[in-house]
């Protein structure tokens, strides 16, 4: 019989779990394609390898990775503390709505202050949306998982109502979409002939900041403590309610920022199809990155790769778009399964407690 013994694996081994999970996903994914009657080797190559060698795809990688990294970094605060915000998608949408509304309100006004204002409004929007589950949990003990998730559906409907109502393009022939943002309300492009915008270095800076806070600051320590032993955290003087509000607030604000970047960056306007599941994919990114800011940077590129590769595969292999979420779900499964090797040592024979 095999038994488990608690054991903390060294940092190197912890680092390798995600890599094993990625390899296992490729294998299982290949099997899936075989079942669908596609060439597995070619499919894996198109999804995981080709985007790395095509210059356009390579720059797109950054564009997809940035929002994932920003959202996942925010989520990692709460996930470490056992605060489960799974409604980042909703906060992302609210960020886009609020930031976008500011951009539209300043339509035609040129000025360097417009973008920062939009970013602030977006963060405020995401923050406020996240405060709903936070306050309902601290005040009424309502489960934040379910509330934050319900608010995703509400946010999606809200966006759709707004772009067919108050935010609709007045010259847009009644199409449910807003005006295109003018120049001052659009993220500046950093590298010509790509879509690489200023949000990408900002994502990097956020990651570094998060690393500092999580590794070196008392706040990060308290987050870890609350996740590892809630009663010990209480004993140390950490207020659970304050942590719930802070964790949800940070992740909400960051998701909102990612939302406004998406609207003011690659999309350039508010449309009902703006949310493409970044908020949910970011959950996988956060876990794949081991809830570590730098790990999350790496993981955001891996998931961005599957998004871009998946899009290519849709055309070249006639694989349905949904195949990619199967991939992402499998990735998370394998990661969770392999985690057992980092948390336990597996022994032959019966072990136990005296």
């Amino acid at each position, binding site marked *: 019989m095999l*038994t*488990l013994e*608690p054991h903390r694996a060294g940092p190197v081994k912890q680092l390798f779990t995600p890599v094993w999970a990625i390899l296992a996903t490729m294998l299982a994914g290949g099997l899936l394609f075989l079942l*669908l009657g596609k060439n597995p080797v070619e499919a894996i190559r198109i999804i995981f390898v080709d985007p790395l060698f095509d210059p356009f795809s390579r720059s797109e990688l950054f564009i997809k990775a940035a929002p994932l990294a920003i959202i996942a970094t925010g989520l990692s605060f709460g996930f470490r503390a056992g605060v*489960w915000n*799974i409604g980042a998608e909703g906060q992302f949408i609210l960020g886009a709505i609020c930031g976008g509304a500011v951009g539209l309100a300043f339509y035609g006004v040129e000025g360097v202050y417009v973008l920062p204002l939009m970013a602030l409004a977006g963060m405020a929007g995401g923050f406020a949306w996240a405060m*709903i589950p936070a306050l*309902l949990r601290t005040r*009424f*003990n*309502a*489960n934040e*998982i*379910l*509330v934050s*998730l*319900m*608010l995703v*559906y*509400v946010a999606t*409907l*809200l966006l*759709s*109502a707004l772009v*067919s*109502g108050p935010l609709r393009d007045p010259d847009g022939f009644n199409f449910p979409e807003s005006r295109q943002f003018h120049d001052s309300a659009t993220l500046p492009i950093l590298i010509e002939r790509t879509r690489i915008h200023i949000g990408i270095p900002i994502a990097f800076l956020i990651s570094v900041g998060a690393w500092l806070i999580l590794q070196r600051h008392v706040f990060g320590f308290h987050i870890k403590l609350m996740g590892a032993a809630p009663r010990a955290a209480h004993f140390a003087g950490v207020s659970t309610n304050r942590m719930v509000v802070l964790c949800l607030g940070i992740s909400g604000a960051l998701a909102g920022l990612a939302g406004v970047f998406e609207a003011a960056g690659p999309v350039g306007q508010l449309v009902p199809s703006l949310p493409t599941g970044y908020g*949910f994919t970011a*959950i*996988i990114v956060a*876990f794949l990155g081991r809830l570590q800011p730098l790990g999350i940077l790496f993981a955001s590129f891996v998931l961005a790769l599957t998004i871009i590769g998946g899009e290519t595969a849709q055309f070249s292999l006639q694989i*349905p*778009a*949904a*195949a*990619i*979420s*199967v*991939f*992402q*779900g*499998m990735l*998370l*499964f394998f990661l*969770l*399964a392999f*985690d*057992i090797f980092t*948390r*336990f040592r597996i022994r032959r024979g*019966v072990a*136990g*407690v005296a």
Partner: protein
Amino acid sequence: MENIKNLNSQMIVTGAALAALAIFGLMNGISPVLLFASIIAAAQPLMFAAIGEMVVEKSGVLNLGVEGMMIIGAVAGFATAVSTTSPLLGVVAAALAGAALAMIFGILTQVLLANQVATGLALTLFGLGLAALVGQPFSGIKPPDFPEVDLIFLSDAPIIGPLFFGHDLMVYFGLILVTLTWAFLTFTRTGLTLRAVGEDHDAAHALGYNVIAIRLAAIAFGGAMAGMGGAYLSLIRVPQWSEGMTAGAGWIALAIVVFGTWRPWRVMLGAYLFGGVTILQLNMQAASITPLWLIVLGLFLAAVQVTVNSLRNPGPVDRWMVGLWAVTVAMGSIAQTYPISIPTQYLSMAPYLATILVLVVMSADKLRTNLNAPAALGRVFQRSN
């Protein structure tokens, strides 16, 4: 007064909601009987999924993958029914598919000791993707008709006919399942063991019970039920296959378990309450009635709940209660006087907002929820021997 004390909040809130719905029907010339009959159909998928999840949670496991298992059930049931032309086989296939998916969750969380929240989320993401992939060739097809139970005389009887008879088989099957689940948990030894495992897995293990096996069985049952709930959607309620068609029903089922405070009959009432909200919202969209009435309804239900609570507890009248009733009446007269119309999107938010409202109302009384909630819910069990 005494009678009110004996009723539970779930009965009162659901009763009040259904009464409001009947009044709404009468005011707008829709037969309340037909409304109620459609509520039963709307509630059915939620009831299956919620009862299944309730059993899972009673065993101490929190499976957040209900949405994923439901949609897999929806597609598996649909595909099987279309290819075999037997809707009943479809339901069986849906249950099996749901259970199979649930076993991934079971093995990850029970054997490999993975975090239940994360695994449940993964299950939902994976399920949604896989269903879309498998279901692609099936969109736009009509499934074979589901057999209706036709009890000639009874079905044609006025009022009670459409209300109690003439539903599809699954409705009666659902009622039987709720009864069986209740009896299983209350009277059987296995049911008692399952509850014990959910209370304290270490103590149950010390008594020699196989915690992991019991939990795996519960998880499989929960998956099968969610799968059937999904099949009900795709084969009977809609009936069609479309990507993402569960639209949060699985998550609402999770909230219904909280609403029902982990008791089968109350969970069933919760399913009817949400069925009611959905039907009301759909009818209001169709009749283009001002959505302000929805807010009035929400306020009304909250006021009823607060009133019941304050009647139960002796002491001065709750200030909240008076305030809530005042706001309800005020909002009602506004809705009556200024029937503003707003886009349908806002009406579609109703089930999700209702879920949040219900969670808030039911969770606020911390001590009472804690007494009913399985004490080991979501905790990882590691065998030591």
